């Protein structure tokens, strides 16, 4: 598998990482997502990492990069589903993922994305993509 699929749901992009990624695959995902944010005019990106059994400094940096690039492109990023053992290990590794919004699961992550879209833009109807 040389690409992680990106799904589009309304104004949001959804990514579920289900494989043990080597570094090039992670970089490809970063590039693909950045391009798709622009091409699909997405307002939010949700990344589900519940199937990842580790997050090392490389994957951590990838997540931080995606969040930064998305923000510059006017989209919010939420990372959801981190396993507790991964969270414990990340903090000990020295990564606190500053600037990344997180939620416990996909439902809460979507709520967060929808809420941030509404609060930033009271006339959100005018921004609906069709």
């Amino acid at each position, binding site marked *: 598998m040389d690409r992680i699929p990106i799904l589009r749901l309304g104004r949001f992009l959804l990514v579920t990482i289900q494989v043990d990624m080597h570094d090039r695959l992670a970089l490809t995902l970063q590039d693909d997502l950045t391009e798709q944010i622009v091409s699909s005019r997405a307002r939010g990106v949700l990344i589900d990492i519940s199937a990842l059994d580790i997050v090392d400094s490389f994957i951590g940096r990838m997540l931080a990069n995606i969040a930064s690039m998305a923000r510059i492109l006017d989209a919010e990023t939420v990372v959801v589903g981190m396993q*507790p053992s991964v969270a414990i290990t990340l903090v000990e590794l020295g990564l606190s993922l500053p600037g990344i919004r997180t939620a416990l699961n996909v439902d809460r992550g979507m709520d967060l994305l929808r809420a941030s879209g509404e609060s930033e833009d009271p006339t959100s109807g005018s921004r609906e993509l069709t």
Partner: protein
Amino acid sequence: MAVENSRSLGLTSQEDVVIVRQAVRTAAVEIGLTLVDQTKIVTAASELARNTVVHGGGGTARLEIVRDTTKRGLRLTFEDRGPGIADLDLAMRDGYTTGGGLGLGLGGAKRLSTEFEIESKPGMGTRVTITRWKV
């Protein structure tokens, strides 16, 4: 300390890093490490295996299940014949990087292990050994 079981894996590509991670996970499960401790040693192995490939120009990972009088552990040795590290204190410091990464690899791997040893000579290569004991 007695070695119960030993295997060596080549580390030349990013795909090899994934294979080493998976082998370390299997060994960690085999000696009965808790899920958190499994995650810690697999994460440390990932950092060190990447260092071997990216900075060391490739090398090997040795996985050993070890035993002392009271407990079992997993010992991992990452070895390369790359350029070596001139200033180990500096290399261990968080945030110091020569490879454009976050500079958390060595310091982070040390924090995630119960024992950590590093030997390096400029021009000769680097060897890092970490151990996580089952408590």
